[in-house]
């Protein structure tokens, strides 16, 4: 029976993938064709979604972007045999955009049926856990440390070291918490994995549990992702039914189970201590550190809090060995980074490559420049707290230290492109407004400072007393940087000051006629 693939990823759905699947199912039935439709995740070539694929002896042939109206024509053109058609993209694996990538964490995403354990295992799934089950906990932790894996949630903290702290802690209960809050604008890697390869996360969390002696895991998914939430819940239920979660996993003595929780629309709950408060049923207010969550985390117990991409990368490292991962990357940034191209971009989507690839390669070679076709003016990297860089800095490599040296940050690997229509003073205002809306309220520089920041930006935008207000803005940013307890208040100055530094012309507003 011929297998056809129609993505069920949110972005594909947002472009009518469901309607395409329905049209296809109906047409196949009418023809009495022997074909099965598999709902896969997305490979992340979003400008081609809905991208449908058909399995042929030569490999999977793709067509896209497909609309429901294209379906009859596609079938008439011999879709089931990979026939010629104006939407035909050839072998999907050979599309240069995909072929040039180095997919380790996303190796299965968009290829398999996300909910089929059989598919998952046929594509290398559970080899990492099988290996981990032959090792002592300390040896698992050492492997992760040796791989050089750093947390992908933003701070880039070495994962192995975090795990070692939790392994060394004595407690009757330990937890693995997966941070799937993915709050940054321009990021969707977590979501794609939840929807496209959920067992990869389940396996990664199970390995983490085995490594540190935790028997329970929580996945905190943001409520803006209802599709991802539903898919992942089903994956957990399947895994439990098939003995991959629960007691005596894969015939071992090890028990581990996962509970899935929904956030409630608060950006700050992506910060790990706030996330723990939220999981405990409270307001998501930041906790002072120390104690570290590794020692006193969820319900006061030792807890590993890791980002979803971090945990989903662990199975590869166990299965292929620490060196296989460490061999990718540059400097202290080892392995691969899933970069997310977003905003005003012609070919947006997910690009997984070794660290060190330049912004220029990503934006121009992969992204194809702006969607509007107008000149690129700015790119914001690392979410709402990340810096705005001008087109003149595109030779920067994607690397934690290199971006920090230019007063930016890598964050979760999101890149948001803006064309020359952007007003950086307005973007700076938005950064302050965002901080004001999302502040947890614990400290004054963040809670009050951001509101004052919005007022200052309003005056600058109105052209009132610009020089003095700009000086005041710098002062305020210094107070926020130095006086905030967490990175929300502490990093909001990054987008603001980068806009001021690289785009000063946008802050020199003409003096308003009716200013005084």
């Amino acid at each position, binding site marked *: 029976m011929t297998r056809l693939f129609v993505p069920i990823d*949110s*972005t594909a*759905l*947002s*472009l009518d993938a469901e309607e395409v699947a329905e049209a296809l199912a109906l047409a196949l039935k009418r023809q009495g064709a022997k074909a099965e439709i598999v709902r896969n995740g997305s490979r992340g070539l*979003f*400008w081609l*979604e809905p991208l449908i694929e058909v399995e042929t002896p030569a490999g999977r042939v793709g067509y896209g972007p497909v609309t429901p109206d294209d379906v009859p024509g596609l079938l008439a053109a011999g879709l089931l045999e990979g026939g010629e058609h104006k939407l035909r993209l050839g072998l999907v694996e050979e599309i240069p955009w995909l072929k040039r990538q180095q997919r380790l964490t996303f190796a299965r995403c968009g290829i398999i049926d996300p909910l089929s354990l059989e598919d998952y295992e046929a594509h290398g799934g559970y080899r990492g856990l099988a290996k981990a089950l032959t090792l002592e906990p300390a040896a698992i932790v050492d492997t992760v440390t040796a791989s050089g894996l750093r947390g992908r949630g933003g701070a880039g903290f070495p994962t192995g070291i975090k795990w070692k702290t939790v392994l060394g802690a004595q407690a009757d209960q330990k937890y693995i918490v997966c941070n799937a809050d*993915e*709050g*940054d*604008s*321009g*990021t*969707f890697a*977590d*979501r794609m994995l939840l929807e496209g390869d959920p067992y990869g996360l389940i396996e990664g969390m199970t390995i983490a549990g085995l490594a540190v002696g935790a028997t329970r895991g929580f996945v905190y998914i943001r*409520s*803006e*992702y*209802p*599709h*991802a939430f539903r898919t992942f819940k089903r994956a957990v239920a399947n895994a439990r039914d098939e003995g991959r979660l629960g007691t005596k996993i894969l015939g071992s003595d090890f028990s581990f189970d996962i*509970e899935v*929780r*929904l*956030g*409630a*629309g*608060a*950006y700050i709950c992506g910060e790990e201590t706030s996330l723990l408060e939220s*999981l*405990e*049923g*409270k*307001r*998501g*207010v930041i906790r002072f550190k120390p104690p570290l969550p590794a020692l006193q985390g969820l*319900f006061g117990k030792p807890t590993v809090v890791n980002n979803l991409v971090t945990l989903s990368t662990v199975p590869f490292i166990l299965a292929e060995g620490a060196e296989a991962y460490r061999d990718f990357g540059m400097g202290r940034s080892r392995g691969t980074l899933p970069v*997310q*191209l*977003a*905003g*005003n*971009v012609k070919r*947006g*989507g997910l690009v997984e490559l070794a660290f060190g690839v330049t912004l220029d390669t990503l934006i121009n070679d992969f992204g194809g420049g702006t*969607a509007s076709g107008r000149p690129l003016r700015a790119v*914001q990297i690392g979410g*709402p707290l990340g810096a705005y860089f001008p087109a003149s800095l595109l030779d920067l490599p994607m690397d934690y230290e290199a971006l920090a040296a230019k007063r930016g940050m890598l964050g979760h690997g*999101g890149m*948001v*492109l*803006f*064309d020359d229509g*952007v007003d950086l003073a307005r*973007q700076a205002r*938005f950064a302050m407004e*965002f901080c004001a809306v*999302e502040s947890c309220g614990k400290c004054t520089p963040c809670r009050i400072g951001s509101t004052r920041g919005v007022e200052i930006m309003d005056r600058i935008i109105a052209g009132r007393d610009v020089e003095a207000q700009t000086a005041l803005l710098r002062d305020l940013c210094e107070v926020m940087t130095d006086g905030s307890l967490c990175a929300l208040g502490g990093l909001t100055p990054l987008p603001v000051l980068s806009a001021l530094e690289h785009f000063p012309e946008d802050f020199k507003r003409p003096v308003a006629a009716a200013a005084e």
Partner: protein
Amino acid sequence: MGVMPWSAARAAELIEQHRPQAGACLPILHALQEEFGHVPAEAVPLVAQALNLSRAEVHGVVSFYHDFRKTAPGRHVLKLCRAEACQAMGADALAAQVKARFGVDFHDTSADGKLTLEPVFCLGNCACGPAAMLDERILGRVDLTKVEFHLARHLADERQS
């Protein structure tokens, strides 16, 4: 969206269903909102009692999170993404058009009760902005025509069922 009228008995049932979970407050509030379309003020003391918390504490949780509504929404909820990637694709202009077309502001419901408009910060659809979500239907590369089309369809579905 199938929102039910307030029922203390039904609320108690939902609370009881989730109470055994560790840190049950958010799961309970989500369940209540799913049933009643919002978290009714009447529910707060029930939740407080079940979780052995003060009413002020529960109220504090409800008010902290952007998701929890204190009043019932219209028959359909449209969330427009206002985050940077969608801004780069004209999200602000789209928001202005939607507000004008339906006569609503953010956090507001149209006079005919058909549509509630809410801002949202990123739907993870950032490569195909502007993005929106109508009830649970995610929409990409949205313009006013697309919003009108999908709303009309949702309203038609509603009449049929």
